[in-house]
């Protein structure tokens, strides 16, 4: 499947956030935690991955 509604620059943007300092690391950690949480509870998925 070719994902149509994705942002190919998302990785680059997040990488810059990550390299930007402690606050940026916290953002990425939070995003990963959010993913783990939604994977475990099954909630939030439709909101996060709309349109795929």
């Amino acid at each position, binding site marked *: 499947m070719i*994902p149509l*509604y*994705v*942002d*190919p*620059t*998302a*990785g*680059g*943007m*997040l*990488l*810059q*956030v*990550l*390299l*930007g*300092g402690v*606050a*940026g690391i916290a*953002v*990425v950690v*939070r*995003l*990963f935690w*959010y*993913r783990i949480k939604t994977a475990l509870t099954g909630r939030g998925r439709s*909101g*996060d*991955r*709309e*349109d*795929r």
Partner: protein
Amino acid sequence: MTERPTADPGSFRDPDNRVFTADRQVFRVFNRRDAADIERLIRSEAFEDMVELGMVVSTEVLEPADIPGSITSLPDPALVVRHERIPFISYPYEWSFEMLKDAAALTLDLATRLLDHDYILKDATPYNVQFAGARPVFIDVGSFEPYEEGPPWDGYNQFCRLFLNPLLYERYVGQNFQHLLRSSLDGVDPGELRAMLPLRSKWTKTVFTNVVLQDSLSRRFEASAKASSEVSGHVIKRGAIRRMIRGLRSSAAKQRSQVRRSSWSDYESDNTYDQRSEDAKREFVESVLKRTQPGVVWDLGSNTGAYSLIAARHAGYVVAFDRDPQVVDAFYTRLRADPGGPTNVLPLVMDLVNPSPGQGWGHTERKSLADRGNADFFLALALMHHMVIAGEVPIDSILEWLASVAPEGVIEFVPREDPMARRLLLRRSRSHGEYSADGFAEALGRYFTVGDRAELPNGRILYSVVRKV
């Protein structure tokens, strides 16, 4: 005389400004509300410095009275600037490794300078760079915009795809990058490159950060609305952007091509030319060029560039085409290393049997070689036997094409008994019986009038020719 301005088909993506050519001049028309910001920058000392240093193409703001009528008729031209014309437009898939590196360094140096003056590059693509001779120059003044602290740098992902990743590919995969950029105008996706890179490269800081980490984050969050909102809510300090650009600058600068040396790299020292023949050939070529004083010369199959350098002394501008990226790289490096050397020679990678096609939207965004104008003079030295024997192109087709390239030129015929031609004929299924000195001379007469003719001591024949109209 005024003609209707022609919109450059490669400049439509940016809605804020477009490039037009009229009366053989290049204009950039800004129609956006913040044209004032661009005008302030162009009129600043900082910009003047960038032009003076050769980083940015010479640009002047036109007063309303100086704007050609054909341009003022465009809808809402808020600001019109005129650019110095680049003699020959080339694309990154026609550059050698060191050329792409120099274009990368220029782009990042410019980004840093702009940040010092509260501006930023809104993109980072090699298509914004052209070569004037062997010197890279930034042409897209429309990419400059006022900097506001907060968002990540928009140019980062593009820089990786179009500059850094092709360089890393050539360094770690050991293959030439040109075919990747020719087939994908968006460059090489980090995920795509990651799959090709050897494991050992992935532990280097450059690859780990810009390829592995970027790709991992991309895979996980490219479709995540939450990630987008987190990014847009986050402030990245100017210092962090500056640091990242500095990191990219040094990452690009330290890459070295790891493509195996080609057999052509040694050609000049290894070919079958005896000194007497070589001297005679040089003398012949130089005397024709001296007499003709052409504007633009295309050296077709330029090899190490020896004859391009001769042409440069008598011509306005020389474009040196060779199909071997390593050979082009060596010639480019030699030109760059010589500060007193010619500034009017542009070496390019081009397989003349399969030249660059028209590409992108409408086949016109990136022009084919044929659509980029012609020359006033061509050099086709030790080229025919490659095109006929290895390329399997009929002699007549080659001559017809040469006649379309320029009205005059010099052609070298390499007889089939020549050791280099024999090497090509070896193991060919076709005998190429039609490839003979007599057959060639006869075909030549169908397309050209022969001026001077010289048979070299090694049996090769040089013709100076003028095309029949």
